């Protein structure tokens, strides 16, 4: 099950709740896959973070985006819409990770081309398992698009 990527996976966690961010982070750290996690706390900041990277190209784009829907200033749906309209950013897998289990939210997220939709469970163990599996799937098994691979400092097969 060892991933062939030799460099750490870059996660972008867009989450306004510090506690939730802590929980997600700690779960990601427990995985055997080496990760790099950036966290932004509101929607406007997230947009700035992503588009700045695309524009300047100085810093690498994240490999996976974990997106909460309920955010200050710009909400998750709007971020998703803007991401998926951008030629480069739309290739980054977006996993919606939110407390909302409302059908309207799920539908809207998938219509905006979200790659996955996960509802934060109240049961911590489940939550933990979910993050572990998420990490495993996106960071170890899933093969990212070539476009972003090209921008990586190093890659091997």
């Amino acid at each position, binding site marked *: 099950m060892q991933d062939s990527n030799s460099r750490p996976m870059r996660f972008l966690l867009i989450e*306004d*709740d*510090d*506690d*939730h961010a*802590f*929980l997600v982070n*700690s779960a990601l750290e427990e995985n055997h896959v080496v990760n790099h996690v950036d966290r932004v*706390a*509101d929607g406007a900041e997230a947009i700035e973070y992503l588009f700045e990277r695309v524009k300047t190209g100085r810093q690498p784009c994240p490999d996976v985006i974990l997106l909460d829907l*309920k955010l*200050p*200033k710009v909400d998750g749906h709007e971020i998703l819409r803007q991401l998926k309209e951008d030629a480069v950013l739309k290739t980054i897998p977006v996993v919606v990770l*939110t*407390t*909302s289990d*409302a059908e*309207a939210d799920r539908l809207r997220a998938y219509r905006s081309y979200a790659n996955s939709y996960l509802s*934060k*469970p*109240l*049961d*911590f*163990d489940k*939550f*933990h398992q979910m993050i572990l599996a998420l990490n495993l799937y996106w960071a170890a098994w899933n093969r990212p698009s070539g476009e972003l691979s090209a921008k990586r400092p190093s890659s091997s097969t």
Partner: protein
Amino acid sequence: MILTSVVLMASAVYLFYRLSVQQWRNWLVDAVHKEACIIQAVAAQGQVVAHHDPSYDWKLATVAQIAHAQEHFKGFGRTGEMVLAWRDGNEVRFVLRRQIPTGSDDYPFNVVPFGGPLAQPMQLALQGKAGWIEGIDYQGHDVLAAYEPVPETPWAVVDKIDAAEMRAPFLKYGGMCIIAACIVLPAGFLTFRRITAPIVKSLEESAMRMESILLSAAEGICELDNQGRVLFANPAALAMLGWNSEELIGKDAHAVFHEHRDDSAHPAPQCPLKATLSDGQPHRASDETFYRKDGGRIHVDCMTACKRSRGKALGVVMTFSDVTARVVAENKLQETYEDLQEKNHEMEQFIYMVSHDLKSPLVTVQGFASHIKKDIAVQRTDRVEDFLARIQNAMERMKALIDGLLDLSRVGRVVAPAVGLDVGGVLQQLAERHRVLLESKHIELEIQPDMPSVCGDPLRIEQAFENLLLNAIKYGSSADQPVISIGCVQRDKELCYFVRDNGEGIEPQYHERVFQLFQKLTADKESTGVGLAIVRRVMEIHGGRAWVESIPGQGATFWLSLPLKSQFKAKSLAAVPQGGNNAGFQLETHAVSVD
């Protein structure tokens, strides 16, 4: 009628009588002429004899001969006779009357004075005239007479008949006719009456029934001619429209009470009346607006049908009933329905928000509790305190959320009677209440003196001001010299209160968002995202508005506007209004000077 008949009959009889008189006259004139000729001939023969024999009295002989000739002649009529006479000085001497010679041997005759009133025809003849006359005869009777002198002799001849005899049959038959008329006509009249009376009675009853139906119908009924002009309107129609009959009759119905008076004319093709006038078919229209004389409007269901007689269109009959009450009720129902829809939508939004935001602290609590459990299992204690603090914070946030939600729901639900509220006083109290907080952040609070007071639910208004003050303290105190100023200006018909800070300000795209439930601009844990939603709700139920004006970096100004005079409209968020005292009382705002 009898009189007319009698007059007509009398006229007819008189005409016949005149005709008869004319015939008699012609006959008499003819006869007297012939007789004069014969007498002349006989006298001429006698004169010849007397010429040879002087003793021969030719006059006597002539008279005798004429008398003899007349012996077998029955004459004419009962009173008709031929009279022969001559003039002797001032006397008229008759020699022959009624076919019989008058007098004895020496010319038996009767005598009447010449120039007297009697024997008018004979006097005329003896003057040498011929002709006819209706006059007096020698006996003093009214007669029709023809007269002619007998040439070559001293005599004149008159044929006459009594007027009475001529009239008698006419009088007789005329009288009989009149009597017959007097009997037959009343009898005929009675018979006619007897036959027609039931028909007339049933017609009258039918007409009365129709009229009473028209007059007592609860529906408005109008009869209109081919041009759509009113010919008749029943009392119900008049009562509904507020016109009286004289005013309405002859007027164009569509123009008078159907056409829109406000903006545009009611399009004629949609008018059932015009439609029926043009195509002759019945039309009906629901919820039409008719205008009353006083300018008021009523909603009617209206039906029009073509009025025909023997296949010819004579106009239109329009019936309508006032459905204003129904329409008002329907409108109200629709309004309530829409209100309910809106509420439902709000409710869905609300529940969605609540479920999301209330679940969030639970995830936190569960997560950290599990972490603590794991740490204890491996005897790790360095993080426990931090984790417990996080759990505690989450619980407090949850409590704050629940309190905020309860506050918000109360804003729409519980409405205290509106009272005059001294805003200046309220603000002083708030300043006192949060003095410690203000001092700890070194915030200067300026409250404009002489703040106008308002009328409203005191607790809610106070809550709105408090939320704005707390908001300003929390987010507007980033400046070196934080200042919060509160004041009021009057714009048009509104009192606009403001709470201004000199903090960071808010970017324009978030000006609306900050008032929405659970919407925050920062990720901090203290804010619940309920406070400004409550402010807006409080303003809405007072008929006012809440908004923010801000230029980023220059602070923010939150505005509350209240109408100077308005209806206190209770608009509940998610709850049915309780009791009946929450709507309909006046919200009056008046300036009161306060220190």
